[in-house]
């Protein structure tokens, strides 16, 4: 067993444990904290794959920004404690069967999968490579995404502004 696989097992376990805890906890804030650990573990897995740029972005966007937005959303809105409800037995059985089928398909699919010869030099200067690819091959999708984000940003401002005026009108 190499150090790499040990690191992978620890990170994968953390990621899965975080996910399971997130589903099973009853307190919303605890769920978000569990989610943070999942995100961090996934960033760690990226590092074991020597994709450090993606790892840093994962931490920056997911563990940092998105988590905080979720926390704000939860804390600033009124939320009653969720009452636990019992699922009907049929639903549990059906979804269990669905999960089993999905697992089997994925398992055999992955077993049979061959990706050809893995690239050996992708980890060298990968930040630069991502930049070059983004601005040469994928420049149109990239620009379209930025326009989409800009539209979302302006939309958010417009919606917030409208609320403000209504309150002022009252």
């Amino acid at each position, binding site marked *: 067993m190499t150090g790499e696989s040990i690191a992978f097992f620890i990170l994968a376990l953390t990621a899965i444990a975080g996910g399971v805890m997130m589903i099973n906890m009853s307190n919303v804030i605890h769920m978000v904290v569990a989610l943070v650990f999942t995100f961090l573990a996934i960033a760690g897995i990226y590092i074991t794959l020597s994709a*450090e740029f993606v790892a*840093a972005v994962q*931490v*920056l966007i997911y*563990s940092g*920004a998105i988590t*905080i937005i979720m926390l*704000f959303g939860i804390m600033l809105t009124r939320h009653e404690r969720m009452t636990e409800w019992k699922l009907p037995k049929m639903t549990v059985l059906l979804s269990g069967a669905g999960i089993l089928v999905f697992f089997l398909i994925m398992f055999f699919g992955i077993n049979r999968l061959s990706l050809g010869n893995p690239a050996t030099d992708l980890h060298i200067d990968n*930040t630069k490579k991502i930049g070059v690819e983004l601005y040469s091959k994928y420049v149109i999708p990239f620009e379209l995404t930025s326009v989409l984000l800009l539209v979302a940003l302006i939309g958010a401002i417009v919606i917030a502004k409208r609320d403000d005026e209504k309150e002022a009108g009252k």
Partner: protein
Amino acid sequence: MVNDLLTSPPGWIHAAIFLGLGACLLVIVLGFVTYAILAERKVLGFMQLRPGPNRVGGRFGLLQTVADVMKLLIKEDTIPKAADKPLFVLAPVLAFAPAFMVLAAIPFSDHLKFSDLSIGLLYYIAISGITTVGILMAGWASNNKYSLLGGMRSAAQMISYEIPLVVSVVGVIMFSGSLNLTEIVEGQKTVAYMFLSPLGFIVFLISSIAELNRTPFDLPEAESELVAGYHVEYSGFRWAFFMLTEYVYLFAMAALTTVLFLGGWNPVPFLGFIPGIIWFALKFSLIVFFMIWVRGTMPRLRADQLMEFAWKVLLPVALLNIFVSAVVKELFLR
């Protein structure tokens, strides 16, 4: 020495050596924190025409912080009954760990560095974001309205000022063509980036003070309105952790400013005989002094002014800085 360690294949001995080096750094940082707090109190004292701490440990109060820490350690460790206990315990750890983690990326001199990350700058920015989660968590878990307000303010402020902070650095990245902090320092052999992108430097300095939650941006712990902000309910050792986080970030941010804008360990022209680490220490101390100076000079901002300032002043200036930097690079640095 560290360069050899970083390039040779890893093993148990490496892990042990790095653990030892990390422990050394921790001790150095703790020493810095001890005397940074004393320096802050002394300098603020002089600015306000009073002597500052001058009893414990001789005329200059050299052991004042040590005594304060001792007092903190033997204080009762309280956890409020209505607090969310697991999060209450986890929050100081989640706030402090990133503060120490970011130090790994910072090169202190040509030979003294703990890593050579190709994305050093991005690593710093990404990891330091996790502290916000810790602070927000502390505010929420305390189950106290002042803590919650303080935590919220802190998170909102740190997110808002992170944007001008990151955008102001883009100029530096363009000049050096790298995210690696060592390469950024080496790119400043002839001229420091603070002269090439002065706008970026000013925006970075202001937003770094805001990121550190220091006066004039210390709304999260505005004692006149919020008692103490997100750490109202904390006492003893846990409270010490939040204080430690704050000062370790002061260390890290001053070091980062030195590396990005002041040329790191590069000497001032004609004074190259002085070793690099001393230059680093000098520039670093200058930044720390500046932070203390600002604290002694400026009054606190109002919450709405704070947000307006980040979005309506700093962000446009930072964007302008990108444009100006691109023009400067194309015209003069080809």
